[in-house]
């Protein structure tokens, strides 16, 4: 086996040094009644060439080749990925390293993550970011736990119905056995979180109000007024961004008063990869720094006074605090955070806002044309970013099926998550969808109306 470097002679000499006859003697600590009395029943080993063929066959069966048009969003976004990213993260000093426990030989990872923390702060308008979390939904759950920690006696959390439905479910999973009450805040007719309902539901027991920005239906929420309401009753404002590219265009949650901003960074240079790995982020205010979950990189100096970076504030973490830790998290999404940093550095101050604008223009082009189609309508006319909902003249599942025949994945059926929207379909447009695709989509929808 090519990954195993041992030869018989070497093994013999190692056994002699150890002072045992055979390798099996080394397993004497495992009682007989714990041994597996047979061989494992697994497929026979594949040589590299055979392996590659096998995986090519598995990967062939999908809808990713250029003949398909895709309008799928819903928390994972098909943006173009600059070639630079994969090239750089394929440097194995990055991807084959462990968590940087030995900072003197891990300055590459540490500085890159310090830069990630800074970029996330700049984009979200917040003060402190950690080194990343698993993904958007788990980051949202961690934000809820953090808000509860920060306001010790409060035990209710309000989740907007516009929050990504999977984020809501994951929050539910995380607080399942904690003494926490989750309250759903309805949406107003315009697709935004209902401010009157917020006013009514907020009380002194609410630790956090959690809202999407933009929300799952693509609608841009009024974070500033929601923050004011939350703060007036002493709750923390949590903003969850499944598509943080929107923040390059619209006002940052930080400038609108958010206390905790979380989200999914997949849009920034990570492949869709069937939903993972992505990269969650969490950014907070200075005052809540010590309640943050996960790894943090901080600046310091070495013995000669030179700048360097280390993992820091680890007294929050499980390996020191054990059951009193701020979270059970051990890993982060390391290399994915580096990918985000590379992406944001490439696009930077000039490219990222322009990309966001172009996404907006493409989306507007499609949205207006669909709105003009007989039988189709827009349930929400409020401002959106690169996603929006349409009401179809017949069940969305039928429309999706019809368009699949034209090699178009038209969007996400909302029947399960938002049955109140009649024949609702969630459509996403990115820079990957050129005008020809958009026009073909409109034609196909026209054909699917009847």
């Amino acid at each position, binding site marked *: 086996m090519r*990954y195993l470097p041992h030869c018989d002679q070497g093994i013999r000499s190692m056994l002699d040094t150890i002072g045992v006859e055979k390798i099996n003697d080394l397993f004497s600590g*495992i009682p007989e009644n714990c041994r597996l009395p047979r061989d494992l029943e697994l497929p026979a080993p594949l040589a590299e060439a055979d392996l590659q063929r096998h995986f090519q066959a598995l990967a062939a069966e999908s809808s990713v080749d250029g003949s398909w048009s895709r309008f799928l969003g819903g928390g994972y976004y098909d943006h173009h990925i600059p070639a630079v990213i994969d090239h750089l993260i394929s440097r194995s000093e*990055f991807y084959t390293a462990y968590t940087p426990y030995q900072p003197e030989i891990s300055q590459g990872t540490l500085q890159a993550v310090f830069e990630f923390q800074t970029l996330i702060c700049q984009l979200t308008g917040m003060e402190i970011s950690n080194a990343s979390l698993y993904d958007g939904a788990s980051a949202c759950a961690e934000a809820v736990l953090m808000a509860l920690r920060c306001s010790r006696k409060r035990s209710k959390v309000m989740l907007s119905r516009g929050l990504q439905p999977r984020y809501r479910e994951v929050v539910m999973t995380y607080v399942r056995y904690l003494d926490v009450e989750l309250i759903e805040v309805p949406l107003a007719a315009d697709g935004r979180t209902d401010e009157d309902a917020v006013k009514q539901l907020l009380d002194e027991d609410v630790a956090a109000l959690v809202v999407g920005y933009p929300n799952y239906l693509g609608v841009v929420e009024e974070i500033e007024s929601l923050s004011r309401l939350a703060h007036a009753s002493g709750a923390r404002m949590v903003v969850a961004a499944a598509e943080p590219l929107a923040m390059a265009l619209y006002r940052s949650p930080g400038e609108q008063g958010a206390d905790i901003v979380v989200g999914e960074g997949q849009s920034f240079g990570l492949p869709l990869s*069937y939903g*993972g790995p992505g990269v969650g982020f969490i950014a907070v205010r200075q005052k809540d720094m010590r309640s943050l979950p996960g790894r943090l990189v901080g600046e310091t100096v070495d013995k000669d006074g030179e700048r360097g970076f280390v993992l820091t504030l680890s007294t929050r973490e*499980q390996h020191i605090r054990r059951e009193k830790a701020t979270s059970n998290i051990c890993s982060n999404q390391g290399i994915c955070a580096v990918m985000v940093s590379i992406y944001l550095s490439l696009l*930077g*101050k000039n490219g990222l806002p322009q*990309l966001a604008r172009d996404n907006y223009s493409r989306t507007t082009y499609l949205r207006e044309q669909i709105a003009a189609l007989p039988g189709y309508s827009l349930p929400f006319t409020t401002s959106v970013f690169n996603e929006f909902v349409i009401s179809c003249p017949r069940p969305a599942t039928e429309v999706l099926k019809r368009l699949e025949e034209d090699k178009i994945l038209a969007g996400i059926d909302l029947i399960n998550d938002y049955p109140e929207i009649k024949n609702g379909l969630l459509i996403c447009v990115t*820079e990957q969808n050129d005008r020809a695709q958009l026009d073909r989509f409109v034609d196909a929808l026209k054909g699917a109306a009847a």
Partner: protein
Amino acid sequence: MSAIGSKGLILNEKLIFERSTAGRCGYDLPLLDVPSVEPDRSLLRDEIEGFPELSEVDVVRHYTRLSTWNYGVDSGFYPLGSCTMKYNPKINEVVARLPGFAHLHPATPDHLSQGALQLMYDLQQALCEISGFPALTLQPSAGAQGEFAGMLMIHAWHQAQGNKRHKVLIPDTAHGTNPATAALCGYDVVPIASDGVLSIEAVAAAMDDSVAALMITNPNTLGLFEPNIREICELVHSRGGLVYCDGANLNALLGICRPGDLGIDVMHFNLHKTFATPHGGGGPGAGPVGVSAALEPFLPVPVIMKEEDGYRLVADRPLSIGQLRTYASQFGILVRAYAYLLSMGPQDLKRATELAVLNANYIRARLEGSYHLPYKQRSLHEVIFSDADLPNDCHTLDVAKRLLDYGFHPPTIYFPLVVQGALMIEPTETESKQELDEFCDALIAIAEEAKSSPHLLHEAPVNARTRRLDETLAARNPRLRWEKS
């Protein structure tokens, strides 16, 4: 000094923000072929203050230089105990990047994702066979989230039985994630003292009808197989509890022993340890969880079902603990792990375990005269020394930093907590005798230096990118982001 650590040209590099030059951009946008429209002005932000402005070349140089300050498994020996830093095969990186996997949107209908679903299903079946559990979820994002899923399932099972139990027993050798996870599931943690391994008596004394579960690591963090594991599982079950196994050390058991056969109810895997997926400087990992038949109804959703006309993701499972992440898995990591599994096959997986244990015992034999060995029992895949015998105010941290000068990544240090100044060495199977000898020679030389020239240890490292870094300063005066000065 017989070291592989040597000289090289190390290039300095500023922070990316300090490299910025106004007006540059490292990405050309695709042609906008629709009319440009102006969004609602009241919603717009100002420029993103502080964001960098760089050309593509700037960015490439920056990250290339940073990478050279890192040490990875591809650079050299990385014997971090409990972390299983084995070689990460390159073909796995290639297959994970196949467009049919890398560009597959997670909301793609199941009938257009059959290849990906089949891969997940087959990996799931293989992990069940390896571990002896009848059911499994691939969903958890890492070991700690796997623990979380496992303990939630235990909680859900008790609730379904009408049990009100609020305690979890955890041996003092456990990883910190175990107690942190138990607390996250609403449990009180009761530590149990072990003497290297857990005794039946110690568990019996703590086990009453308020205890929901025992969390155990096997082999434990001392590298010792828990010899009473079957009896302990029986005991816990007989008093109405369940047993959780931390599978971080599964690399010691492949093809030799299946935790699911021993009476364990739940175990998580760390695919980034046992199944050779890269650690990525801190992640992503993946933490599948195997469970007994009784816990199967509580698995997180969605689950993958194989039906007559293909594979399907199913979310409608009323007893499920729910969902743990936005989409079904860290799929890209699963692809790599499955590629590893298929490359190895059943015989070589077992061989890997045998050689990992051989390597650890070889290191132990070579270092036993030079460092204090606190536990004398035959250990499996890792060996733990302590700094108890080191003279001249030399400690584990000094040894670790001196190892850097010799060109090696140090072992895990100061863990497990039950060993004073622990040096926890896990070589894995992918290191040759030559590598191990060079490493042992270095450690033996360092033990000599501690006697004759302790300043070499105290001053170390001198060959690394930086000298020893001031971690106290970092914590006392946290600077967690760059600010324009």
